[in-house]
């Protein structure tokens, strides 16, 4: 079956020749019309549309956006804050970068609609420190929008006022975790908070109710406000509505970003047709489907079970290529859609070395407040790094697994899961390669082999 056509709603103008990131260009393309209509509506109506749309968060967890907004404590009398999570840092993910650099006003308009819907008077865009240009572009866009009365006091004469400020991170991955982000925005180390009691919807920024949404998620809200939740839900598949942006990197012919109706494209269509297949003379070996913490899939393995199609239970028997790229299908086969970052590895890659690379990342990024994560991620790094650069032992796979198994569920935030899933899944899927590694090391590598760690 041929791959479906791309359906670009969020990336509509990305890489469009002649499209610039100033407000003039945005207005010429119908910009801020949705905000103008939105501020004339009842805020609850917009929230209802988002609930109807079934929109799920695009940052990684896939949590329904309408539910998130529904949890906000609106009776406390405290101000409600909205934070745009622009701390895009899950390895393999590179979609928000293009929205912010090339189409910043789409994000500003979407943010203002979401603020209006939730009676937010102050929003912050937390952008990662490594995007200094992105921060300047957003600041310029906000200034332009303020002059045009789309941001600031008495927006479009409605009496509603809302400010947006850009806040830069400083290189810490954990700031993508929403409570870590909040701590960071308060001027502290980004140590995530324990939940309960610190659910952002109730006790978030400055102990006030707070909404934290990913850049892409908010952009979907603008589309929903324009077309209605029911119309949005017609795109994609039930439970996985709207479009999904896939960021494909690694060993394919055409890496890049591709936007499709959610659940309509399979892994095989995405990698073979859209991305042009493996590099010449190579074969796909493994793929991580949703950012580097998602569990790895091995080409050649099969997934069997029963799944719901409409009201019926249907048997499925999938190879990696057959899996539909949506939250639920990827969840069913034991991995996740996460942030949409698809990392592809071909048959030149040794999985011990690939894992050593990932483990070095998580060890570097653990915030350090929970012992199982701080020590566990460090030891997983040390063991895999020793296997590659020092002596590899037959019992290393079992040792790695025992470390990884003792982290998840024992930490304050989901980083514990994120850092252990790679090790657990690499060993489950490629245990043979870990066992053989002491032998593998004895053979000399080809001269053009790439180092991964």
């Amino acid at each position, binding site marked *: 079956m041929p791959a479906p056509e791309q359906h670009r709603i969020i990336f509509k103008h990305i890489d469009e020749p002649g499209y610039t990131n100033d407000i003039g260009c945005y207005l010429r393309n119908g910009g801020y019309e949705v905000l103008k209509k939105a501020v004339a509506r009842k805020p609850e109506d917009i929230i209802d549309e988002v609930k109807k749309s079934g929109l799920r968060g695009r940052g990684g967890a896939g949590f329904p956006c309408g539910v998130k907004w529904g949890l906000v404590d609106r009776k406390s009398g405290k101000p409600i804050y909205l934070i745009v999570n622009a701390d*895009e*840092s*899950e*390895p*393999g*993910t*590179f979609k*928000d*970068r293009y929205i912010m650099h090339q189409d910043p006003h789409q994000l500003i308009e979407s943010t203002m609609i979401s603020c209006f819907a939730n009676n937010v008077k102050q929003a912050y865009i937390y952008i*990662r*420190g*490594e*995007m*200094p*240009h992105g921060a300047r572009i957003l600041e310029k866009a906000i200034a332009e929008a303020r002059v045009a009365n789309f941001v600031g006091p008495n927006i479009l004469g409605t009496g509603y006022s809302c400010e947006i*400020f850009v*806040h*830069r*991170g*400083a*290189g*810490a*991955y954990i700031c993508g975790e929403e409570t870590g982000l909040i701590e*960071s*925005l*308060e*001027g*502290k*180390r*980004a140590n995530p908070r324990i939940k309960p009691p610190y659910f952002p919807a109730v006790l978030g920024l*400055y102990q006030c109710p707070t909404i934290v949404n990913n850049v892409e998620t908010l952009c979907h809200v603008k589309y929903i406000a324009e077309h209605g939740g029911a119309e949005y839900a017609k795109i994609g598949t039930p439970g996985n509505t709207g479009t999904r942006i896939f*960021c*494909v*990197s*690694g*060993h394919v012919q055409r*890496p*890049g*970003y591709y936007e499709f109706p959610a659940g309509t494209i399979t892994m095989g269509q995405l990698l073979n047709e859209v991305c042009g297949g493996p590099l010449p003379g190579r074969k796909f070996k493994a793929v991580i489907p949703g950012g*580097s913490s998602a569990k790895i899939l091995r080409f050649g393995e099969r997934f069997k079970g029963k799944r719901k199609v409409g009201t019926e239970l249907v048997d499925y028997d999938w190879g990696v290529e057959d899996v539909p790229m949506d939250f639920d299908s990827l969840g069913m086969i034991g991995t996740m859609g996460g942030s949409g*970052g698809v*990392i592809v*590895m071909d048959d030149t*890659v040794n999985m011990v070395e*690939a894992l050593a*690379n*990932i483990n*070095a*990342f998580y060890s*570097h*990024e653990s*915030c350090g407040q929970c012992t199982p994560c701080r020590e566990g991620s460090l030891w997983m790094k040390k063991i895999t790094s020793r296997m590659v650069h020092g002596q590899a032992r037959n019992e290393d796979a079992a040792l790695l697994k025992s470390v990884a198994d003792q982290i998840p569920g024992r930490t304050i935030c989901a980083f514990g899961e994120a850092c252990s899933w790679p090790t657990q899944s690499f060993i489950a899927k490629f245990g043979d390669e870990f066992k053989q590694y002491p032998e593998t090391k004895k053979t000399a590598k080809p001269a053009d082999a*790439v*180092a*991964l*760690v």
Partner: protein
Amino acid sequence: MNLKPETLSKIDEVITHYPTKRSATLPLLHLIQEDVGHLPPDTSEWVAAKLELQPINVLEVITFYPMFRQKPIGRRHIKVCRTLSCALLGGYKTCAAFEKEFHTHLGEVSPDGEVTVDFVECLASCGTAPVVMIDDELHEKVDCAKAKQLSDQIKAEAKKR
């Protein structure tokens, strides 16, 4: 702390963005680092006084975030992405090429004082791997040949000075 007048006015402005002064800690550290090149030893005291905090509140932030540095670096900062997607396409070779060009090692100032080469974690541009940031500029698909070309450019600019 000897900061430029424009840095000082930016500092006063950014504090107004937040209901509590402490929130301005990261913005102030960025502004000081952009002005001075690194965070000098009296930074914690100075920022703490400005934001009505204890110096430890600032120092613990400085030591937590990888982008803040307490020591000077070379005139140009070359940050090579180390993470998986870049490594799969030769990021380690790219990094070695920069080290060789400037006769330096990771994290050190090159002998001519021109650059510091660092490995950093994912720069969120995995589709154009391997990527490198030189100061604020992102460079895409930096293989060894492009690393050489970028190095030559830096050297040429240094000669003009």
